[in-house]
């Protein structure tokens, strides 16, 4: 056992010295993820509100104004002005000044009054699918409500659905995105730091020197992982604090459980960083490889897109991405107050992945040395 990890302590101490000596690394490690957190945390809002809307009201009656009021009251549409022709309406949407156009025909009031069907045209800009979907469903809802109000002026509705959104009652986007972002930022920073540290040694020839000493591959790798792991853990605490205090995302579960279950994820990303460092000859190459791991973890981990909606192939891929499991843990504990009983399996999978990555990296390292 002792021989397997030979050199661990001196490597660990030396690596800590590197970190302290190089303020650039420290800055990069601590500040950049924080900046990104602020940037993304504030910028991403998937709740669609106040869609710019233009109106062509040919009817100009009380009935038409009542309908328009209902559109405005939904908070989804923001009536930004009137146009005089359908061409003008198209022009407004094409130029991006408006995303929705509502045209109420001149015979609207007459049809509403005599009980026949009045038609209202709602033009929706489909270039942003989420905006379009929201506009279509809300306008259908508005029409339905207006119709019911017409048919049953004072009666009670036969069915009343009262949705109650659990865990994130105000459906704030920040609550959904920021916990996932924690995982992504932690991953980027950790992989880069450790991969660059090992490749730097390769570039400068100190790695060659180390292979001539009795340092064991696992001693070298684990020795490097410990200081960077500690750094990443501190950063995690800082990011969680900002999430809680600045973005007001409540942590419903146990913070200590969350921190404990972050360790297997750190183990995994450190292992991936080490694997990258065995492949990359230069720091630039390591940087590119590290960046290459980021896109799949953003798009296929459930961070942005629902895994259940992906084609089967991508669902399988999402299962081999460690971030998928960590995001489940993060959202489970932070948003739903999940306990160990709910997320232990994700933690176990991460532990297995992390150990495999480190052993593989150590093996690669030995093979390479021989080649």
């Amino acid at each position, binding site marked *: 056992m002792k021989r397997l990890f030979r050199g661990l302590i001196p490597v660990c101490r030396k690596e800590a010295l590197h970190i302290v000596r190089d303020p650039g690394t420290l800055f990069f490690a601590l500040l950049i993820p924080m900046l990104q957190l602020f940037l993304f945390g504030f910028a991403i809002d998937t709740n669609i509100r106040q869609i710019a809307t233009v109106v062509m009201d040919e009817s100009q009656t009380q009935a038409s104004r009542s309908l328009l009021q209902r559109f405005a009251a939904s908070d989804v549409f923001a009536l930004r002005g009137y146009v005089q022709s359908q061409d003008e309406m198209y022009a407004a949407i094409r130029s991006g000044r408006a995303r929705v156009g509502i045209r109420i025909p001149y015979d609207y009031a007459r049809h509403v009054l005599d009980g026949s069907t009045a038609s209202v045209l709602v033009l929706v800009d489909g270039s942003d699918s989420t905006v379009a979907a929201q506009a279509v469903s809300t306008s259908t809802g508005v029409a339905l409500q207006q119709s019911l109000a017409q048919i049953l002026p004072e009666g009670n509705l036969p069915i009343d659905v009262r949705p109650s959104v659990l865990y994130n009652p105000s459906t704030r986007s920040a609550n959904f995105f920021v916990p996932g972002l924690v995982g992504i930022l932690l991953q980027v920073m950790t992989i880069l730091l450790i991969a660059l540290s090992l490749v730097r040694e390769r570039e400068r020839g100190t790695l060659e*020197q*180390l292979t001539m000493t009795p340092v064991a591959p696992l001693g070298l790798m684990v020795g490097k992982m410990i200081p960077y792991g500690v750094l990443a853990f501190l950063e995690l605490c800082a990011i969680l604090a900002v999430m809680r205090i600045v973005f007001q995302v409540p942590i419903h579960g146990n913070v200590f459980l969350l921190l404990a279950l972050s360790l297997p994820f750190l183990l995994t990303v450190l292992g991936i960083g080490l694997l990258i460092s065995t492949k990359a000859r230069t720091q630039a190459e390591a940087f590119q490889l590290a960046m290459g791991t980021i896109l799949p973890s953003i798009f296929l981990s459930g961070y942005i897109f629902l895994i259940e909606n992906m084609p089967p192939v991508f669902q399988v891929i999402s299962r081999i991405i460690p971030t998928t499991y960590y995001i489940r843990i993060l959202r489970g504990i932070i948003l739903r107050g999940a306990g160990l009983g709910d997320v232990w399996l994700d933690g176990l999978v991460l532990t297995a992945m992390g150990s495999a990555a480190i052993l593989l990296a150590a093996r690669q390292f030995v093979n390479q040395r021989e080649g």
Partner: protein
Amino acid sequence: MTAAITADHLTIRFGSFTAVNDVSFSVDKGEIFGFLGPNGSGKTTIIKALCGLLRPTEGGGTILGMDVRQHAAEIKCRVGYMSQKFGLYEDLTVEENIGFYAGVYGIHGEKAEQRKQEVLALTGIEHYLKRRAGQLSGGWKQRLALACAIIHSPEVVFLDEPTAGIDPVARRALWDLLFRLSGQGVTFFVTTHYMDEAERCGRVGYIYMSNLVAIGTVAELQGLPDANPPDTARIQIKTANASAILDSVRKIAGVREATIFGQSIHALVETRQMEALRARLPEATIETITPSLEDIFVTLTYKIMESSQ
């Protein structure tokens, strides 16, 4: 006296490429053994194999009596290694570098402190303890690298082109150090490009295209039949305009090699053409000389190139 280093029909192949071909030699304890050869001839590969980093394809070797195939871990603890890249951490101080390598070799506490003082005294780097390695000059970096390489009192030290890019004063200082250590019984295996360094070594090996071409003391090499082909003489032509007439000397019948050496020309000439040569260069003083190491290696290299064509 047992040998400190032996190579026994050592052969290393990478795929179809033979990096080291059937190399055998032995280095005695306390000896300084010089290893010469062009880049890519297999010098570093041999060092790696002897340190147990590379498995020999065929043959083998021993370090201090231990088989390199079986005792790699043990060998690493008793062998020091210093490369031309020095393997120093430039953002760490002199003291921290030494401390790190002491730790890596498993030396702790009082023993580490004692060894540190010893290598500091030996290399004379104690005035720079708190300086970062990156701020040292080339010569001091090299001394620090040596201090790190011998922190664990190795009995055998491999130096892979230790003086590449170092000024002459620092080079001489390093060699003085090596002689002192070898006097204490440390064995050195030194690869180099510099002929004058090779001449300082007790014995010299010359490797060319993966083959060990010649091995022996400088005197032995000078007496090699291959280095002194029959019916030829090694001569020095002293003349006022050596570089101007070099090309014309090369074209004279019977001149096999000719090169500039300072103000004169060194040439290998067939003895039966000597009189003709003297007649062609009436104003030059021509005398026979013993071949330098460079002369020997050039002659050997030409011979191999001819026979492989």
